[in-house]
């Protein structure tokens, strides 16, 4: 049964690309500022964070200039959080497709996860400019960046599958989502470095898989300090668990989507 699910996914890969392409196209067509939104959003957040956390509260930043420190985490975080919000609603907002034509339903959250990467790229270009400005050179660990990014993409996909499927049955998810994303921001080392936390809290942090990937992303890109491989390892395990759970839950509920949505 599960292999059929995977082959179907593969057979419809072109549709996945088209759905993602549609998302990107529509997003940039409707907005007057177009692609620049992908930069403006993390940029303004970075300014606020620098002002309140970096200057006023004096949150440390592992010896990296605070603006770069926070922006480096905000670019992937913006990708992650906006993907959750969009993908969580992807089945509901495409209900006309679901009730009229057959295709693997999982393509809808998957397409959102993919299309968000375009925004991420825009942000990444700006991040590179900032690194040049602050004269921060990445080391050999730069080659680990795609791995952490891949981890985040898989994590976003796993959580999106669960949220999207839940949302079909319980519309509460739509209201809970912004709140969930907000809380998640604070329990992820974006504003602060992992080193800022006492060891006791660090242990809890490990169960937020975004913590390991983000911290890994930042330290490998900015070459700030030694990688916390234990944290990363736990993130990988938790993500794998979420991916399997999410796929099973989605698979089990998708048959009724067209009847409920």
């Amino acid at each position: 049964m599960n292999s059929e699910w995977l082959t179907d996914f593969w057979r419809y890969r072109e549709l996945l690309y088209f759905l993602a392409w549609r998302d990107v196209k529509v997003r940039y067509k409707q907005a007057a500022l177009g692609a620049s939104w992908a930069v403006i959003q993390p940029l303004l957040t970075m300014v606020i964070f620098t002002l309140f956390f970096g200057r006023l509260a004096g949150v440390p930043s592992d010896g990296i200039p605070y603006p770069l420190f926070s922006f480096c985490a905000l670019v992937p975080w913006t990708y992650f959080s906006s993907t959750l919000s969009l993908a969580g609603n992807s089945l509901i907002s495409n209900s006309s497709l679901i009730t009229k034509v057959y295709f693997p339903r999982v393509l809808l959250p998957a397409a959102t996860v993919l299309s968000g990467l375009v925004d991420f790229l825009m942000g990444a270009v700006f991040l590179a400019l900032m690194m040049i400005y602050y004269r921060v050179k990445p080391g050999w660990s730069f080659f680990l960046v795609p791995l952490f990014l891949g981890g985040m993409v898989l994590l976003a996909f796993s959580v999106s599958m669960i949220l999207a499927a839940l949302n079909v049955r319980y519309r509460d998810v739509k209201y809970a989502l912004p709140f969930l994303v907000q809380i998640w921001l604070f329990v992820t080392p974006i504003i602060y470095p992992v080193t800022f936390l006492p060891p006791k809290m660090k242990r809890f942090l490990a169960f937020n898989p975004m913590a390991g990937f983000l911290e890994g992303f930042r330290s490998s890109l900015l070459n700030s300090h030694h990688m916390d491989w234990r944290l990363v390892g736990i993130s990988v395990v938790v993500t794998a668990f979420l991916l399997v759970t999410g796929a099973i839950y989605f698979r089990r509920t998708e048959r009724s989507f067209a009847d409920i949505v």
Partner: protein
Amino acid sequence: MSQTIAVEKVSKKFVLGALQRDTMLRERLISMLSAPFRRRSAPNVLWALRDVSFRVDAGEVVGIIGRNGAGKSTLLKVLSKITYPTSGEVHVSGRIASLLEVGTGFHEELTGRENIYLNGSILGMKHGEVTAKMDSMVEFAGVAQFLDTPIKRYSTGMRLRLGFAVAAHLDPDVLIVDEVLAVGDTGFQRKCLNVMDGLRSGGRTVLFVSHNMAAVENLCSRCIWIDAGQVVMDGAAREVIEAYMKTFANARESMADLRSVKDRRGSGEIRYTGVEYLNTSGEPLQVVRSGDSLVIRFHYHANKPIPFPSFGFRLYTEFGTLVTDTSTWHHALDIPLVPPGDGYIDLHIDFLNLLPARYYFSLWITGAASPVHDNIEYCAQLEVELSNVYSSGRMLDSRSGIVFFPQRWKVNESVLAGASSKIEET
């Protein structure tokens, strides 16, 4: 012949109301908490399909008919894997394309070209295939000039043509079509029918749901009639359609009384209650004959004052071909207010130019802001009897067509003169 569709004892259950109730977690929690103290109300179960079985061979074109809510659309959705049966099995072999709607997934902001790619890939076409067929699709839709315009600027007709253009180029082994033809003008409908005819001659399997009995009869060799989720009859198209249309005729006794008709739509603020046939002096008419003058009186009942209603009447042949559609709106007849209570409105027909046959009609009433107050399909029949329409003593019947016009034949004088001289000679 090889078999492409096998439906085995398929049933589909819907629990009415329950879905609505459960979509909010809060409601669910409340019902869980209060469950011990309250007797659970029996769920309202609807069997959209019940033990439906049939097989379709490759190359067959099968029509599916039935009233609204009979389960036709659910059947198509089960066949296209959009929804899953509660029990039973469905096997479809070959590339399947289902067209439950024209232009599925169209996005307003995207251009015509972009939407062709998107729609094509949603319907299961490969990118290269769409590119290869692009010119032909654009030509079919007749939107060449607007190909790079966002479709939010398109008219409804253009959108339809574009959607159908993509669908027409799908080239599937099995095509499932739901009432697509109900929309669009006659030119467009003819185009759609031609495409389906092309598929048929190309040996493809087509399943076709429609209320247009004429189209079903023309296209399909076989017909399946579904009512209340069950197969009532499955056989040669003409026979099934005839049997199906007869069920409307059985309602003849209730014809004068439309109050008991359940299968109707609309707000119900004003309803048709009955139909009467009268002659021009207002006496009941026993027999309606071709060429008669008659008055059809529609009785109605309004629950409250109805501002600016439009009364409408659609006449169909026995096979569902629309003969005419007329209404007070077409005549710009404004009725400022219909007071509550019973009343009637008369349709005067000066010259009934229908040939002898059995006709059916549908009635509707809409309001000022155009909500439908009442709409009853095939609610009454009109039996038109033979008459000496051309005063020639030669009778016309349904084989002569649907209508006749006031007409004369005139033979060239010289032909007659020549002929009479020939006769004299012999």
